[in-house]
């Protein structure tokens, strides 16, 4: 079943977070006025990206990366009988134009260029089609999404969006319990590492910001990135729980007997 929506309601960071955490395979197509992008994922990793108006083929990527000259590019295009990048890549390696490493790096750089452009899009409809992958001939380079999400969140400029996503700075952070969390593989800035070093059940986000002399905007942006990359979770700190429990003493219902709930269950089952 395809997932559909608009970036106004569910932005690119959230979409990548969904793909990452659910380890999805499929193609995400985003369309807006005069723009269209297709991004493919395999088991939660980015494998392919293309943007209309940009060079999609391997030759263009290699030229952009400075691995071949524009003259070489023109000659290869004129002589090439195949449109399939994989086949073309093999021919170029065998002919000594480039190495396999050159190709992997160029495709990776192109893919990242495309997705970082997407993080600036705030409007446009999207469709995620499960299990759809790029054509057989396309060269795919798997890239972990955590770093991309962190980089994307560093480019966020809208305070209102961050406030919506993270309204309460009096919550604490904890490292996610996902066993495949890969903190050691993530490229973090010094400021992000500072925040990480203060993660502790006793420290609220507000206290972490204060300790590091960070503005509300900065701490929200960093925490938003860490949350979106699936590295940390939010939780209510113990101190706040105690205060809440004390204030709820008046309004909370008296403890309900187990037998009463069992009667309710029995009734609902018989309905």
């Amino acid at each position, binding site marked *: 079943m395809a997932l559909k929506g608009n970036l106004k309601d569910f932005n690119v960071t959230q979409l990548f977070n969904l793909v990452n955490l659910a380890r999805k395979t499929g193609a995400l197509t985003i369309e807006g006025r005069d723009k269209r992008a297709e991004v493919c994922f395999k088991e939660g990793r980015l494998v392919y990206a293309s943007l209309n108006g940009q060079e999609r083929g391997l030759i263009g990527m290699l030229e952009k990366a400075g691995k071949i000259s524009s003259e070489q590019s023109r000659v290869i295009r004129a002589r090439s009988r195949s449109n399939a990048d994989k086949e073309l890549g093999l021919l170029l390696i065998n002919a000594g134009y480039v190495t396999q490493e050159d190709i992997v790096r160029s495709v990776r750089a192109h893919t990242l260029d495309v997705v970082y452009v997407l993080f600036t899009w705030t409007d446009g409809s999207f469709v995620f089609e499960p299990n759809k992958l790029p054509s057989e001939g396309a060269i795919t380079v798997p890239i972990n999404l955590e770093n991309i999400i962190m980089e994307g969140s560093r480019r966020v400029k809208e305070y209102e969006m961050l406030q919506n996503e993270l309204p309460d700075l009096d919550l604490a952070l904890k490292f996610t319990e996902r066993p495949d969390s890969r903190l050691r593989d993530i490229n973090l800035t010094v400021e992000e590492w500072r925040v990480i070093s203060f993660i502790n059940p006793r420290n609220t986000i507000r206290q972490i910001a204060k300790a590091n002399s960070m503005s509300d905007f900065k701490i929200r942006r960093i925490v938003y990135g860490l949350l979106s990359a699936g590295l940390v979770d939010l939780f209510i700190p113990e101190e706040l729980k105690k205060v809440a429990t004390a204030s709820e003493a008046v309004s909370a219902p008296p403890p309900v007997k187990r037998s009463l709930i069992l009667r*309710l269950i029995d009734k609902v*089952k018989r309905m």
Partner: protein
Amino acid sequence: MQTVKIVVTGPFNAGKTEFISSVSEIEVVSTEQKITDGAQVVKAQTTVAMDFGRITVDDDLVLYVFGTPGQKRFDFMWDILSEGMLGFVVLVDSARPETFREAKMILDRFRSYSPTPYVIAANKQDMENAWPPEDLRIALRAPSNTKVLSCVATDRQSVKNVLLELLYSILE
């Protein structure tokens, strides 16, 4: 006679009134009014105070099911309705991602009242564009131990299942 209550909350047009109607033994006491703002394109009437359904267990015990008003300007009712509840259901229209942000806000607000058990019902799963419950969990940033259940509010069996899961959570 002992009465207990469960609250059904969620964004505008999530299906709260239908949810309660599917299991209530009385015709739902619904305070619906004609919509006078832009929301009219989505539906013609909305709940301004509360929906109210009843399930009589026996002579000594009655379960009331309250639905909160979906429109944000009536959110002052949420605090009143949530007082003394056994647990709550957050109903989300799975086919309208534009409401997920509000659903998350409602979920956070209700969770802040007290550590009351709750479940999330991913409603309108019969619609073509419905997001699956597991995707909805990620979209709402719901904890991994929170139940996110498939639901079709017009289907009595589906609503019963959501209520049962909530009651099992209360029992834990």
